[in-house]
């Protein structure tokens, strides 16, 4: 909300402060000022001048030479403006002065434009006459300004006077961010009340009196509200003999500063009252109201209505309508109809000031696709008490401006209006909540300023109805805090029972995952939780793959963000591809993020969120690099048993011969592999890439930070190497299983040290060599111990069709 400070000062006449002080103080008391603009910024040495004489420029057809009286002297100014004539009074910027902008009304330069005396086509010119654009404003705000050319004052302004002041530009416009609970502050009066309380100055409300004529409003209009729920109050007044014309300059300036374009007296009055009181009003041409009767009711499903912007709007029974005896004349709280709008020929006007159900207006505005200034206010739920004051204010202004005759009386249809909230006065509880020691007197002084009435007899507080945000004691405590000053509240630390700071086990394991990934050269990425359903095809998932059962977002930002991911790979592959296409060599990324698995679709309960530790890389690496990272991680989180790698993982997105499911103690904990070349193609990656995914909820039960020291071996180890020729299809894992199983208690370790296929090995076989370590904890091994163990191992291997070479 934007408002000129001069308008605020109209209600807080004693307010004196700099713009910055105002901004800071208001913000600290809860009315946040986003910023302010001085309207006279870069306007320097600008006075009213009167053109005494105009002559043609000797050397230029489009220029004229003017003698301009600026009070103390007459100066010569050359101009190209087409609209000036002798006798006109115009704003003149003198030599060395400044204007805010160019005559084209483009963006204003930060430091303005300095005007210096000089020659135009050889003729001296000692200043410049200004257009409204050069003064930093526009015709929207100053509708009386000419379309092209110099601004011309009315005849009665004094020559030599401050032109900026006369234009109402010695002012500052403040932009407020009003919080949604403070409906009352969406008005100049509301903010002025806050300003008065903040600076502890008297607050002076405008005095509203309407004379009215000798007629009765009931003879002009009747009102029937069929849905009291949606329309708690409807006030109507009538003004006749309307004379449409411009509103007074002061009103135009105030509206302009608020960003509202002045139009004519009638429109300006309704807009002015809306700004001043925060109560939107509507004016109907009474002659278009059939039966001189207003009926407030819901629309019918399928109705179409043309709003006064000429658009057809589809309605339904949730939308509240203002109707006359025959037809609909406006969408309640949103916009009036084309069929009842005010034209310049209007003679009798019906003013409406009503309050509507905020939630309904918000929904209706969305339904009909039209959000207006009025609906924006109504949807916050306005105070019905305010409607009467506002409509009377509008009628008062009609009378003051002499642009109509107000018919006496007001039609007021309403049910029980909300009563003032009364709360007991509990100063100790406010201090206890705030941690302060504000005196009772100080509190009462604060309440007085914000019009919360203290009733001594019952020691209670009566909250005015416009303060819809004050319902409980904590709300009162906030008022005390705001005006006592948040900055004066002491700073302490909580006392009481000590608690232990904790990072839960799951998060500690995730921290380890990050550490290990980073030690291994992987950097952490972050991916979105939602993605496109096309991802499943990119990953070559089967049509019936359970991963395709994903949660769909009802109102996504677009298809690309429409489902909750059920696999984490797409994010990783997309990130790898981004890097690849930006020619980053050697990329290693990891991500810790959830996947979302529905228990049933459509969702009836919350899905399972499973944390995935996803790794991806390309460059100087292979399958076993990735495997190494996983094993480092397992080792680090206490998973010291041997993980089983099952090549029959059946994952379409991975290379069929280079993938494995990972089992730990019989549980599937994840998978790894080389990305299928077709998937790489789908992601525009022309390189081999490797990925691994660990399902953290599956890993977690095996993870532990417990360690037990096992002693360092005191007795010597015995090493035995075996070399064998193995049928190609037998995997190393099988051989190792035999060694592990048959090596007995004295088996300490085994390491693959050579694997070879080729020339000297017969077709279909490979050569494999292991080094096996034996050791006993309690003695030096005898040759016989080792021989027995080796024999068992070798027997086992031979049983698998393996030939021993030595």
């Amino acid at each position, binding site marked *: 909300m934007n408002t000129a400070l001069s308008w605020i000062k109209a209600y807080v006449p004693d307010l004196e402060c700099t713009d910055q002080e105002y901004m800071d103080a208001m913000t600290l008391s809860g009315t946040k000022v986003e910023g302010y603009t001085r309207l006279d910024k870069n306007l320097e040495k600008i006075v009213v001048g009167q053109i005494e004489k105009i002559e043609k420029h000797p050397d230029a057809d489009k220029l004229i030479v003017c003698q301009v009286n600026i009070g103390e002297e007459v100066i010569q100014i050359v101009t190209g403006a087409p609209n000036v004539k002798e006798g006109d009074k115009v704003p003149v910027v003198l030599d060395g002065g400044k204007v805010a902008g160019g005559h084209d009304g483009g963006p204003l330069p930060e430091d303005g434009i300095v005007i210096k005396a000089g020659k135009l086509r050889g003729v001296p010119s000692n200043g410049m006459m200004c257009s409204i654009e050069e003064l930093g404003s526009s015709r929207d705000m100053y509708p009386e300004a000419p379309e092209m050319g110099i601004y011309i004052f009315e005849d009665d302004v004094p020559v030599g006077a401050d032109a900026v002041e006369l234009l109402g530009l010695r002012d500052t416009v403040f932009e407020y961010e009003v919080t*949604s609970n403070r409906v009352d502050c969406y008005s100049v009066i509301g903010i002025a009340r806050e300003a008065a309380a903040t600076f502890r100055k008297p607050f002076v409300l405008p005095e509203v009196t309407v004379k009215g004529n000798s007629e009765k409003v009931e003879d002009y209009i009747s009102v029937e509200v069929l849905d009291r729920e949606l329309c708690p109050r409807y006030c109507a007044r009538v003004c006749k003999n309307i004379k449409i014309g411009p509103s007074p300059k002061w009103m135009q300036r105030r509206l302009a500063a608020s960003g509202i374009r002045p139009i004519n007296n009638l429109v300006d009055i309704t807009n002015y009252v809306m700004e001043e009181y925060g109560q939107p009003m509507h004016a109907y041409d009474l002659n278009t109201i059939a039966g001189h009767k207003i009926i407030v009711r819901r629309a019918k499903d399928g109705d179409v209505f043309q709003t006064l912007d000429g658009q057809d709007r589809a309605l339904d029974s949730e939308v509240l309508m203002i109707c006359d005896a025959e037809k609909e004349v406006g969408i309640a709280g949103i916009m009036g109809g084309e069929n009842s709008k005010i034209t310049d020929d209007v003679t009798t006007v019906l003013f409406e000031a009503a309050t509507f159900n905020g939630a309904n207006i918000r929904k209706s505005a969305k339904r009909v696709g039209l959000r207006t200034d009025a609906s924006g206010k109504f949807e916050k739920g306005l105070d019905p008490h305010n409607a009467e004051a506002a409509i009377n204010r509008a009628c008062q202004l009609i009378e003051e401006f002499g642009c109509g005759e107000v018919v006496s009386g007001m039609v007021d249809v309403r049910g029980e209006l909300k009563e003032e909230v009364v709360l007991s006065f509990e100063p100790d509880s406010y201090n*206890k909540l705030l941690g302060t020691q504000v005196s009772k007197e100080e509190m009462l002084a604060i309440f007085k300023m914000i019009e919360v009435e203290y009733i001594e007899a019952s020691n209670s507080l009566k909250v005015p109805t416009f303060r819809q945000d004050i319902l409980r004691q*904590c709300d009162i405590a*906030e008022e005390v805090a705001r005006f006592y000053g948040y900055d004066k509240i002491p700073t302490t630390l909580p006392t009481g029972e000590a608690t232990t*700071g904790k990072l839960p086990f799951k998060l500690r394991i995730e921290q380890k995952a990050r550490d290990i990934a980073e030690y291994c050269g992987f*950097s*952490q990425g972050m991916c979105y939780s939602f993605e496109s359903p096309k991802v499943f095809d990119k990953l070559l998932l089967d049509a019936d793959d359970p991963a395709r059962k994903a949660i769909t977002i009802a109102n996504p930002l677009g298809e690309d963000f429409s489902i909750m991911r059920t696999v984490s790979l797409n994010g990783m592959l997309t990130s790898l591809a981004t890097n690849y296409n930006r020619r980053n060599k050697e990329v290693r990324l990891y991500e810790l993020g959830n996947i979302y698995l529905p228990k049933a679709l459509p969702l009836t309960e919350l*899905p399972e969120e499973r944390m995935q530790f996803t790794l991806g890389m390309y460059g100087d690496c292979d399958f076993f690099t990735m495997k190494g990272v996983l094993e480092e991680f397992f080792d680090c989180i206490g998973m010291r048993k041997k993980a089983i790698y099952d090549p029959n993982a059946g994952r379409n997105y991975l290379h069929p011969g280079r993938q494995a499911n990972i089992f730990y103690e019989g549980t599937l904990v994840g998978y790894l592999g080389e990305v299928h070349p077709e998937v790489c193609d789908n992601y525009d990656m022309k390189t081999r890439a490797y990925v691994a995914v660990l399902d953290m909820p599956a890993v977690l039960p095996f993870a532990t930070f417990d360690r037990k020291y096992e002693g360092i071996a005191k007795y010597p180890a015995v090493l035995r190497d075996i070399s064998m020729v193995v049928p190609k299809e037998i995997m190393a894992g099988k051989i190792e299983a035999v060694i592990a199983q048959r090596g007995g208690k004295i088996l300490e370790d085994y390491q693959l040290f050579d694997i070879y296929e080729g020339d000297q090995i017969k077709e279909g076989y490979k050569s494999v060599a292991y080094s096996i370590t034996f050791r006993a904890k309690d003695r030096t091994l005898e040759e016989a111990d080792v021989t027995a163990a080796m024999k068992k191992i070798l027997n086992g291997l031979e049983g698998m069709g393996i030939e021993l070479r030595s």
Partner: protein
Amino acid sequence: MKEKLEQIKAEALRQIESSDALEKLNEVRVNYLGKKGELTAVLKGMKDVAPEDRPKVGQLVNETREEIERVLEESVKKMEKAVREAKMKKEVIDVTLPAKKNNVGHRHPNTIALEEVERIFIGMGYEVVEGPDVEKDYYNFEALNIPADHPAKDEQDTFYITGDILLRTQTSSTQVHEMEKGKLPIRMIAPGRVFRSDEVDATHSPSFHQIEGLVIDKNITFADLKGTLEEFARELFGEETRVKFRPHHFPFTEPSAEMDVTCFKCGGKGCRFCKGEGWIEILGCGMVHPHVLEMSGIDPEKYTGFAFGVGLERIALLKYEIDDMRLLYENDIRFLKQF
């Protein structure tokens, strides 16, 4: 006899003096001190010495031996040192050649910021907890004093899955889960992912992270809230940091506030970074609304508390001067490596 010993000694010392290698020194040792060395020979000739002179001569021999040994030892040490130095002279390397790095990976700036925040609050006795990303309407809104027709619930801000299930728009939902557990006092922070229906651009993302904080105990005051968050800001942004609390409105706290910190680039003087204001808005906070406590089964007459919510990306962007939020989700290695 004496003359002979003197002569042996003089000759031995001369030979030591003229030795230019360790081997030669060793020869001297063998020739004079060894089993067949000259001094040993002298000792062997003791039998020819008169018995009364023997102790004297013995002493003389020993003295000579010690002297030779001493000089020999000195020379060996000197020579070893010379040899070592000569060797090292040949081993000079160019220390400005490139390092052999392990190419350790880097944490995401969000995570660095998160771990900082976690560290600070764990130190103050807070427990880190988590809540679900996909959440019931009740926990995200209703239990936080945002009833059915509240504007904050507007569909354009919230991603819905069904009428009742949504993507949480704030980590404040975790407050409710924690309060419902019924274990008091509570001191927790809850980091997590939140979702809002904002198009992706330099300052918006439909998915970002928040850290929620909640303290509930007897006698918790607004002053405690101020003190705690001031402490937090100083830890996070530096000892010099000052804070400012401005009144604000959140449905689930009352009184509510926003906290600004002095700009950590200019220290509050005003610069381009803080748009000349000297202050930067950092978080929202307030005293837990008694109705929120009631809904979660906590008696507001006995217990009070405060809550706060920090935008993680906001802190990361500010701390590291990242000018485009999209960088956080592109995962370009050249970006990630800078943290």
